[in-house]
């Protein structure tokens, strides 16, 4: 599903974020990427939807070698991957419903079908009653769940979450992680970056531990 082979990323200025890492995540797996901040967790995840290009090595996602993807094809790669961010990345001037509907609007879904899917996604994250709300009026945990609904609404086969619980208290964090496990149970492949070792350990999924840009 996701295969890294000798992937290195050097930022301008000579900062090596990743130093030649190789791993494979198979379909339906739920994998945590752990390690101290600055170890390269975010960089690793950002390479998968080509938010960044690797300096070296090859990445294969859904049997496609990302090196062969032209700029024009990148949007279609991103549509097949749901992304969740620590800072939610919601549009503040649109309702919860419109935020979640955005991937479907972009993909050109028919209105009725889009509406149905948005409701289903909001229902799954337990926010169906907030669809008309302004994101700013929601709590941090609720905003994150809107972000998750947006990531899953187009039913991608891969979900990527970068510190999704970074700003949440332990109870809410656990709640979010349980939500991810539910998606995993229906066959979605997940890669989640987290520095919350205690929580990750408790959940007991496969772990990729990064230290100073290398797998440990």
């Amino acid at each position, binding site marked *: 599903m996701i295969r890294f082979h000798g992937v290195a990323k050097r930022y301008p200025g000579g900062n090596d974020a990743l130093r030649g890492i190789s791993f494979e995540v198979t379909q339906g797996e739920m994998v945590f990427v752990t390690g101290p901040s600055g170890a390269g967790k975010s960089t690793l995840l950002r390479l998968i*939807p080509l*938010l960044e290009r690797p300096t070296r090595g090859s990445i294969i996602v859904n049997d496609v070698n990302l090196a062969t993807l032209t700029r024009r094809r990148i*949007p279609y790669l*991103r549509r097949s991957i749901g992304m969740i961010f620590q800072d939610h990345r919601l*549009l503040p001037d649109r309702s919860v419903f419109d935020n979640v509907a955005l991937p479907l609007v972009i*993909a*050109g879904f028919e209105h009725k079908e889009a509406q149905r899917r948005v409701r289903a996604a909001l229902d799954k994250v337990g926010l169906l009653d907030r669809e008309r709300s302004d994101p700013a009026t929601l709590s941090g945990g609720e905003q994150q769940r809107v972000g998750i609904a947006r990531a899953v609404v187009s039913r991608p086969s891969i979900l990527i979450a970068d510190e999704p619980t970074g700003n949440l208290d332990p109870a809410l964090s656990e709640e979010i992680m349980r939500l991810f496990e539910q998606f995993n149970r229906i066959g979605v492949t997940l890669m989640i970056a987290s520095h919350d070792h205690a929580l990750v350990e408790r959940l007991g999924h496969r772990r990729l531990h990064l230290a100073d840009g290398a797998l440990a």
Partner: protein
Amino acid sequence: MRFFTQHLSAAIGALGEFQRRLTGNLMTITVIGIALALPAIFILALDNLAEVSQDWDGTPSANVYLERTLSEQEQTALLSQIDALSGITRSVLISAEQGKTTFAERTGMAEMLNLLEQNPFPAVIQATPVNTLNPDEVSALVGTLADLPGVEDVRLDQAWLQRLQTIVDLASRATGLIGALLAIAVVLVVGNTIRLDIENRRSEIEIMKLIGGTDAFVRRPFVYTGFWHGLMGGMLAWILSAIVIAVVARPANRLAGLYDSGFALSGPWLADGLTIVATGVFLGLVGAWVAVTQHLRRIEPGEGT
């Protein structure tokens, strides 16, 4: 169908954005309207003038001004002398008194004329040459007329028609240049407005690209913003030029009347208006395109964070 609905929603979305920043957008539209109205007004006026010279039947006629000292008999003698010239088909004598009366009738300045001790108008013989003469023969004929005793001056009315033609040519060339400069101004104004728009919506654009929005999708609302600006600016320009021409038409037509011309300032008609609006839309789209290609590509979710 999907293509159509996506465009429709982008167009309506852009209109929504438009009214969210109403004041700024209205100012942009006003600038576009004025910038388009100015050349439009000049072009319309010149079109009207060009029609005057086209309406002309092409036969010049010479105004032969007679010396004031000539008696009535001498004037009539001169008339028959001119009438007898080969190359002249028709000649009419307009006495000084007739000239004064006609002028007074046309201008309503009879009282002012009465203040003058002396009739300022000379007697004139209007001589029409045969229309087969070439310009050289016409000037030779003018020379002959001027050399006749008792003739003060000869004016070929074609001369001022030619002058008018030249002025129109000059003015339309200047209008073309100014119009081109103002068109560039419109493109830049729209481009700049959209550049600011893009900056204001930077995070929105990033998010769009993050979740798989194609360049075309991200570009579309901004291109439609340019379209709306151009459309509304063009309509404003149409209204402005119609107002200006309506205000100016009356005195202009009066002035034309003084020159004994059938010229009547009119317009802008539907076709002119649609041309103005289409020009606005075109320039708006060009401006949007310039801004979008320059700035949109630079915003990538990969940068920064």
